[in-house]
């Protein structure tokens, strides 16, 4: 996008890169150091003693971190799969078709990214009581869909805005059933969107705190909740170790998809018009 350009755009790129690193990478360094520290006090620049104690504890049976990690992975995967199942048809409708009330639907889908989760979740909490979903893993998965779906739908509608449905008509005409057409024609065409949207959904679910806390009612403990427990109990070394595990998917996903997220073949097109 900004491959060519004057000194201004070049300067802007350097500054934005610096800001990005200051905000995203620098805060992680002390966290990483903490996980190997044994006594790190002001005004020392580095800890006096190094240790693997925090990591040993993190991977021990008594800590429950591993159990919690599996649960978090399960919840995030489930929320991702559900987001794909709902987001693909929704994205298709918004990206491909014009219909009455489309702007309203777009707004409703985007709303959760604007309205604070805590405002919504109190209402959901009372609805979930009648459904018996509070304090259950199912309830947590369902409530995670509120923040994950907008990303999925946004990405998919961008994909479908550049999608030619005539390929499907051609496949039908050549003898493919509706299901086979979806499998052989549609899926390969929208795969980049499913991957990018799915990764977004996974990360958003992975990092949910408030929604999990309120709907899970303390019975469903995911990694962010555990992390928060340790962070507030002044165990900086264990917080550091869990924090490292916690940010791992984000870094992996970023490395895997950096190519898809920028440049000409960007899969993130939003609603195509935004």
């Amino acid at each position: 996008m900004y491959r060519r350009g004057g000194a201004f755009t070049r300067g802007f790129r350097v500054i934005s890169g610096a800001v990005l690193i200051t905000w995203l990478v620098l805060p992680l360094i002390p966290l990483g150091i903490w996980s190997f520290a044994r006594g790190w006090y002001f005004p020392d620049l580095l800890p006096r003693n190094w240790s693997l104690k925090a990591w040993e504890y993190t991977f021990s049976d008594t800590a429950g971190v591993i159990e919690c990690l599996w649960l978090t992975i399960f919840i995030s995967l489930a929320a991702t799969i559900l987001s794909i199942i709902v987001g693909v048809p929704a994205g298709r409708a918004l990206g491909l078709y014009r219909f009455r009330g489309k702007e309203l639907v777009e707004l409703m889908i985007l709303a959760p990214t604007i309205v604070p989760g805590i405002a919504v979740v109190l209402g959901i909490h009372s609805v979930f009581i009648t459904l018996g979903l509070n304090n259950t893993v199912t309830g947590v998965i369902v409530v995670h869909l509120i923040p994950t779906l907008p990303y999925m739908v946004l990405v998919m509608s961008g994909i479908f805005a550049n999608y030619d449905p005539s390929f499907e008509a051609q496949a039908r005409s050549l003898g493919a059933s509706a299901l086979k057409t979806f499998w052989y024609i549609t899926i390969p065409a929208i795969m980049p969107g499913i991957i990018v949207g799915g990764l977004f959904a996974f990360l958003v679910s992975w990092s949910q705190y408030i929604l999990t806390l309120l709907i899970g009612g303390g019975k469903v403990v995911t990694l962010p909740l555990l992390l928060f427990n340790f962070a507030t109990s002044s165990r900086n070394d264990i917080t550091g170790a869990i924090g490292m595990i916690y940010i791992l998917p984000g870094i992996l996903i970023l490395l895997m998809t950096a190519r898809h997220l920028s440049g000409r073949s960007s899969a993130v097109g939003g609603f195509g018009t935004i």
Partner: protein
Amino acid sequence: MTQVSLRDLTKVYQGEFEPSLDRLSLEIDSGELAALLGPSGCGKTTTMKMIAGLLEPTSGDVQFDGRSILHEKPEKRGVVMVFQNYLLFPYMSVAENIGFGLKMRKVGKLETSRRVGEMLDLVKLPDLGNRRPSELSGGQQQRVALARALIVEPDVLLLDEPLSNLDAHLRFEMRDLIRGLQQELGITTIFVTHDQEEAVVLADKVALILDGRLKQYAGAEEFYNRPVDEATARFFGGQNFVAGSSDGSRFESALGSLDLPEGAASGKGKLTFRPENVRIGDSASATNRMTASLAEKLFMGTQTRLKLRIGGELIDAIANPNEVAEFSKGDEIEISLPPSSLWVLAN
């Protein structure tokens, strides 16, 4: 071999009042190559999609061999449509594209690869099976699209503007290929085009559709010599329309009193004749002789276009450049209109 009938086929798109296609009735005989001809937006692609099952008609019926197929799903109709932009699946090789229809019919791998090979030979692309569609030229892509349609041995083949995306020299090659394959395989074929020349050179019969209505359905020559009305004649390059009245044997107009062929319509109307049928030069024995003054002369290489003024009427003529070389603007020229070339459009 399948005979296709369209019965009062009508399509009104949602939110529109005017039908895009208005009560189209056509019979396309088994093994025939028919053209749906009309300007863009006249409803011809709509018709095609309704035959293919990709669009639901508002009313009317599509019948194959007298049996309605409207309730059949597109993949069960035995119809294959080849789209204008070919729509080769980009994630598949050329061979996989061609074999797609067989894969959907659960034909075995060996059999599929044998028949794909045959098809590649048939469309004269024997060595391109492993290429990606994006590596092919437009003409090659079209051949692949054609092979992909023919491999499933459809009862009815639909082609959307088959020649319009091709260069001039490729068009003739492709026309011969389509015509040859169609004759060889005897598949009832319908194609749409906006180009009257394309319709004429390719089709056995042409259906002219203007504003969603069928104007005329006939062999190509009929459109030149016996058009049903002025709009039809104009679509086929007709230029000369002279108002007057006919009594069935003579036509009275600004051109004078002209002899008509047998069976001409009578009453008030318009006389029409093709520019290329205007005879130039003095021939004492000719009927319908008259003197015209040359108002304009345009040399076009293989032919020369003339505008002639006769009794206040301006008529178009096309002549052999050598025949009219001696004439220049303002000259008086003897011309004649052979009765067999005249056609009366009654009001």
